[in-house]
């Protein structure tokens, strides 16, 4: 049993401005706890920057910078290099960006930083849409998903951000989600121990946008992994894949049926999602076998 003394200090303080039950707030808390208080954090317009608090309040007890939407990576890189000119080499610089700020508008800046192998940890808090501006489709929104701008379901597939990052051959990339807290925090610590560009793709349920109850974020996050919709793995140097959790491979319906944003799905659409999930899962396992 954890005693008061052993309880790790939280960097994200209570009283922040997230919606009740927010998956992103939970994720931020875990990431910052694993990173420690000796770090600099960049946020960009997203739910994370709102959770960070309005002036003069600040919910996180680390130096934080709210940069422009599309420059999370470039801004973190500027801090990282400037610290080095001051002889400071032991303070990690972390960038938090949403899926819009990563998959869409921030992709160029992220690709540039990854190409230069900037010494930063980049965490994409992916709630599969523009949730801070309401609920609009992004290129991280899965196919068939309802959003405010795809009222009959999204026709595009979810962009494969992990493959894009692997193609940059960055030293460390991993997927994580709040439903697996130990796995998530272990990955942040591993990222912290490596130099160069590190990328964590963090799936983060949004109660409002996914139309789930306030207490359903952890369960939904957990089921995304257990249905292979969002497998947990890491990629070393863009080449070596490793699964970090062996899923129970439950039918995708067990995940989809938890969420109001999938209420409209037909049986054929669910079958199509299952087929695509199986294909991707098989492909990932093959990559992991090759990498071991």
């Amino acid at each position, binding site marked *: 049993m954890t005693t008061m003394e052993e309880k790790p200090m939280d960097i994200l303080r209570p009283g922040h401005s997230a919606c009740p039950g927010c998956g992103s707030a939970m994720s931020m808390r875990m990431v910052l706890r694993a990173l420690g208080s000796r770090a600099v954090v960049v946020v960009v317009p997203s739910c994370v920057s709102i959770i960070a608090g309005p002036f003069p309040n600040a919910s*996180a007890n680390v130096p934080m910078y709210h940069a422009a939407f599309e420059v999370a990576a*470039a801004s973190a890189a500027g801090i990282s290099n400037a610290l080095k000119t001051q002889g400071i080499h032991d303070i990690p610089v972390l960038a938090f960006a949403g899926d819009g700020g990563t998959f869409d508008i921030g992709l160029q800046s992220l690709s540039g930083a990854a190409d230069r192998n900037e010494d930063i940890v980049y965490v994409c808090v992916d709630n599969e849409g523009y949730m801070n501006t309401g609920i609009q489709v992004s290129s991280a929104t899965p196919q068939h998903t309802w959003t405010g701008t795809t009222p009959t379901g999204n026709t595009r597939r979810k962009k494969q951000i992990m493959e894009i990052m692997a193609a940059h051959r960055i030293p460390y990339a991993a997927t994580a989600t709040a439903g697996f807290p130990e796995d998530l925090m272990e990955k942040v610590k591993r990222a912290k121990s490596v130099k160069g560009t590190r990328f964590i793709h963090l799936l983060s349920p949004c109660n409002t946008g996914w139309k789930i109850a306030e207490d359903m974020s952890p369960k939904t996050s957990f089921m995304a992994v257990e249905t292979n919709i969002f497998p947990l793995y890491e990629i070393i140097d863009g080449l070596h894949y490793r699964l970090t959790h062996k899923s129970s491979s439950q039918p995708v319906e067990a995940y989809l049926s938890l969420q109001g944003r999938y209420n409209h799905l037909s049986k054929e659409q669910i079958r199509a999602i299952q087929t695509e999930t199986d294909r991707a899962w098989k492909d990932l396992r093959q990559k992991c076998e090759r990498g071991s």
Partner: protein
Amino acid sequence: MSKFITGNHAVAEAVRLSRPGIVAAYPITPQTPIYEKLSETEASGNLEGIMMRMESEHSAMAACISASLTGARTFTATSSQGLALMHEMLHFAAGARTPVVMACVNRTLALPWAFWSDQTDSLSQRDTGWIQLYVENNQEAADSIFQAFRIAETVMLPCMVVLEANFISHFMEPVDFPEPEQVNRFLPAVSLPRRFDVENPGFVGAVVTQKQYRQFRQLSHEAMGLTLETAEEVDREFEAIFGRGYGLIEAVETENADLVLVTSATITSTARLALKRLRAQGIRVGLLKIRLFRPFPTAAVRSVLDPVATIAVIDRNISLGREGIFCSELKAALSNSPVRKRIQGYLAGIGGTDVDDVLIEKIVQDALNRETFSDGPVWMEED
């Protein structure tokens, strides 16, 4: 030490001597030789800081801003499309009160595509909150870089040194460079607030209320007011050490002038020549060079132009649907002047065409003999 050098290389050498911690840049014609020269300087081990070879101008400015907030002296250079792409981050730099210094090499904006001198790129960044200095020659370009770091780091606002494509960027002129010790005396090692201190964490860039926003803007505007005094002091100190001063504006034979010609940047050099010839013919014409565009030196301009009745302004730029931008600014600055003015705007050199002494004389003659002064600009055709 004197070097026969292009304006771009003069800027790069002045930047090296200014010892920035971070140089973040991206190539664009005609700025590229600044970026290349600084890269060579780094490769030979003579650049104190770190070069960041960015994937866009937008990211270059983003990196300069965050590095500046970390406490580093920062520099970037761009032109035209690159500056336009940076636009969002230019507002950001000023709002963050980061003393980023930039060399902007004026170039035409597309469409149509072109590579020549035109000031509309930098002038259309007028309202971003950047200090802007327009330089006349290679020596002034180099000297203004040293001054820009001093001014920016004193008032905590970003500063743009604006030099024209080709006429300055690629033309060679003799330029005097100070010894490193002299520069260190004028521009000491960087001492900026380090905003990301893990021992004393704070949040830079939080969301504010309507009233707080207004208060922040008011503070920035006051800093711009302070910039007028600071830029003058810095220029005086520079002149005392290096023997060269430029002022915020420069008035040439404006006293008792029947007409004052107002110019900026390289057209000023040619206007000096035209002025001599016109004076020799007994024509009482004066010249006013505007070096500092933002903050606009209204009081200094009025001290020269308040008694003057007839003014001609030459612009190598245009706010489409209005007129030359220096002309508009000048008219606004003189609107409370006690002497009634007749001000005529002339567009010359737009697109990078040559503005020679003959063309300038033609402008002066036109203004002197003009019966009616039009609210719109007069387009001057090149020979």
